[in-house]
């Protein structure tokens, strides 16, 4: 009986404003058959340099989606935001 664990990025979603939602899965197998999948999620917003250190394909998606105009638009939108009621 052999157990193994592999970590992959199994889902990404790009929002309209360029935000990338990332799901990482730890896939656990027994004798080659998957028996469990544990998820961890995070988000990269346009211009976030941390995306370059994420596992593939996040850096490539960021490079393709985050044009200068997308980053500028996102930052401008953020600057205008406040919590509700503030």
């Amino acid at each position, binding site marked *: 009986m052999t157990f193994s664990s592999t970590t992959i990025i199994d889902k990404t979603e790009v*929002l*309209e*404003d360029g*935000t990338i*939602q990332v*799901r990482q899965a730890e896939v656990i197998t027994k004798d080659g*058959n*998957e*028996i469990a999948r*544990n*998820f*961890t*999620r*995070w*988000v*990269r*917003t346009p211009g*976030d340099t*941390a995306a370059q250190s994420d596992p593939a394909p996040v850096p490539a998606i960021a490079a393709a989606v985050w044009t200068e105009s997308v980053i500028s638009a996102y930052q401008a939108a*953020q600057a205008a*935001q*406040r*919590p*509700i*009621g*503030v």
Partner: protein
Amino acid sequence: MAQTGYTPILLYASGTTGNTPSASNLTSSSSGAELALNYYDGKLFYKDNTGTVQVLAGKGGTGVVAGSNTQVQYNNNGVFGASANLTFDGTNLGIGVTPSAWGSTNKAIEFSYASFANNSGGGAYVAANVYLNGSSQWIYKSTAAASLYQQSSGTHYFYNAISGTSGTAASLTQAMTLNNSGTLIFNQSGQGIQFTNSSALTNSTLNDYETGTWTTTFSAYSNGSSASLSNATYIKIGKQVTLFGEIAFTKTSASGVLAYVNFTIPFATNSGVANCGIVTGESGNSVAILSPYNNGSSISACYFVIPVSSLVGATTDNYAFSYTYQATF
């Protein structure tokens, strides 16, 4: 040469394949009847009472076969019978239909629309309106929709295809899987278990369930200098997301009305929905709220908002929270 002491019986004979005697070659009457043998084809002929030459027997003792080539022989009231409704092409059996051109390893039992076939990988196919050809393409049998159920290595696969033209390749979509561990998987986004308690089918479909951990990025501090997240988990059921975690917030001022910081959340909020959460400080005497953006836009971020007056720690306060909101999906 005849065996000594025996008198051979000689028949009319031919050694040319396909040769059959004509009616005038043979006699049949109450006083005697003649036989003819084609020793190349292995067929014995006689002339019946209507004057028609018939095959009396074939080589191997098979007798007189019925029907046309590839038709299966069956006992039809004591004689061989055959029908176009039961056809065997040497590999595949057609019931009510001539077998399609299956791949050589499949060996199918085929009906007009349905088929049961072998999967060369050790499994089985039950197909409706498609067959698998020698190029591993599923081909429409008629111009209509198609579906396929496959078993392979303990896993059950369910496929379907929209209507296509007879004789063309079908593009089968994997709709559902029951894997060899017993987990049922809905392979297509947005599909799930439908509760038919409403005419609004989309709103009565349970299409997602997921649990996991999450990390965040803090930004845009007001009256704060840093924050961190720990013990962060989530549960997502359909569109409802509940985040759990603990935020440690470091203040920079003991004055002012509010302190807040922006942080990313793992699923985008549904635009226009008033999501809000109450956060309880670990000391039990301070509270904060989790608030969406003030324009109600759909975004993967949220605000952690604290009344400055409730910041009781010397520098950093810890806040445990659960935050339930409606996601876009």
